[in-house]
């Protein structure tokens, strides 16, 4: 029996989760939400996390009904992400690890998403679409690495959506992406937007700058509604994501797709991917907002896998890093 506690706070979500041999014992989380029109800054986000982390830690332990002595390993997000929030969380992880006398494990955030997706959906060897505010990658496992087949060559799809939300002042509560999704459902008119796929990579900065400039013009000229823009943006960027996923599948000969990351909560994206899968006779796997959105349990799960395959992070190596590629990690727990 192995129990791992995971600490996650690389962006505006702070979550701590506890996993026992594939069972999620607890997974509390808090989100730092900024007023409409504003994004979240590193310093403020770190301050938010500092303010709530010990409360969340207490919740995690109480909900799981375990004592620190029961824990086998303390996993935390080593990166990638925003510097200040990552440091804040790492400090707490290091402290409790020493306090409780438990080994530490620095986990790659992206791999946390993948391993949680695999655990929850039981997908065998899927092509993974990892889409969030900070990342957009198409990943497939091969020879001890999660290899990146396609990715954004500039900004992440979630970042594009979040920044568009700011332009037309959509609320960030519970998240800008969620609100765009709700508004898109009411959109009727399809507005043509730039579509940029380069091989297996995508580019979103072009569509973002286009829509940032065009949005206010079109809205004041009454050419379309904000709902139409939300709808058109989603249809375009999601089509791009489905396309690069399909390319990777064709290239690898894969028959399974797993969507992870915050943008993976979006039901329209899941629907579109589902249609593509159906046409190819492939299977789609997706999780709900508990696990799509950054959470502590995913770090615990990846930590569980790593720990069981013999990995441990020494205290002097338990730093954090803003840049940490998914394919840098040796996946010692799979063959």
């Amino acid at each position, binding site marked *: 029996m192995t129990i791992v506690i995971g600490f996650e706070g*690389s*962006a*505006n979500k702070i979550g701590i989760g506890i996993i026992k041999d594939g069972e999620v014992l607890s997974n509390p989380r808090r989100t730092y939400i900024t007023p409409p029109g504003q994004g979240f800054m590193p310093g403020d986000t770190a301050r938010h996390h500092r303010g709530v982390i010990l409360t969340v830690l207490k919740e995690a332990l109480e909900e799981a009904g375990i004592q620190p002595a029961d824990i086998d390993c303390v996993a935390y997000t080593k*990166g*990638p*992400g*925003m510097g200040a929030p990552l440091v804040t969380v790492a400090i707490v992880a290091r402290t409790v690890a020493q306090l409780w006398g438990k080994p530490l494990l620095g986990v790659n*955030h*992206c791999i946390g998403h993948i391993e949680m997706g695999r655990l929850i959906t039981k997908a065998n060897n899927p092509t993974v679409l990892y889409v*969030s*505010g*900070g*990342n957009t990658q198409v990943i*497939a496992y*091969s*020879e001890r*690495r999660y*290899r*990146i*087949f*396609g*990715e954004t*060559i*500039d*900004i*992440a799809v*979630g*970042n594009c959506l979040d920044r568009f939300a700011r332009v037309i002042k959509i609320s960030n509560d519970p998240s800008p992406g969620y609100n765009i999704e709700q508004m898109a459902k009411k959109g009727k008119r*399809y507005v*043509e937007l730039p*579509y940029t*796929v*380069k*091989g*297996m*990579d995508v580019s979103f900065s072009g569509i973002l700058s286009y829509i940032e400039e065009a949005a206010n013009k079109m809205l004041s000229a009454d050419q379309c509604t904000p709902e139409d823009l939300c709808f058109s943006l989603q*249809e*375009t960027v999601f*089509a791009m994501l*489905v*396309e690069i996923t*399909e*390319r990777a*599948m*064709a*290239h690898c000969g894969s028959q399974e797709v797993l969507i992870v*990351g*915050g943008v993976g909560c979006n039901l329209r994206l899941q*629907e*579109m*991917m589902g*249609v*593509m899968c159906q*046409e*190819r006779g492939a299977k789609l796997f997706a999780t709900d907002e508990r696990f799509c959105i*950054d959470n502590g349990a995913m770090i615990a799960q990846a930590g569980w896998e790593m720990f069981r395959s013999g990995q441990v992070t020494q205290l002097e190596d338990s730093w954090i890093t*803003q*840049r*940490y*590629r998914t394919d840098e990690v040796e996946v010692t727990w799979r063959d």
Partner: protein
Amino acid sequence: MATHQLLRGAELLKQGAEGRVYRAEFLGKPAVIKERFPKRYRHPELDEKLTHRRTVQEVRSILRCRRAGISTPVVYFVDYSSNCIFLEEIVDSQTVRDFIASTQPSSSQEDQELQWLAKLIGQILAKIHDEDVIHGDLTTSNMLLRRGSESSDFELVLIDFGLSYISALAEDKGVDLFVLEKAFLSTHPNTELLFQQLLHSYSTSSKKSSAVIKKLEEVRFRGRKRSMVG
């Protein structure tokens, strides 16, 4: 609709990401028919525009390459109402992907045996870029090897120009190489040296290569530099 009738009797070769590929005879010649069928997951307006644009771009790029003496399938016929392209079938060929996989079965060491292949690919890419054709989807699945006129050498045939376009910008050529580099290294692990040889061959064969290689380095760094939050 004549094309659809023909397709019904044709042999389905594969369902790639772009559409379906069939084998049939066209005017007595072995042909491959590329059908870009409507993608139901896309908004119909987006789908129509994209599909048409890609059909047109593909044909234009192939023609431009052929005029410059680069090996690509011959375009026999285009049906714009169903977005089908009728192409020459490249018989007795193998994708570079399968070729590398068969000569380099495990990822253990770099094989010097494939150096000639790296050189050849570099030369061909230099040629298409010097024609300002950006392939847009360079992968080892989109390159075929067939025996040349002399039985000892191989000919490289480029296929799948669906994402291609015309551009003189070093940035676009750099991204084109970047796409290949990513596809290459992710599909064929431990071939970094081979790819270096490919780039070297490209540099020596292309007249405008230095700006392109510089852009390639910039684009590589862009990916690394990006702060990955969330």
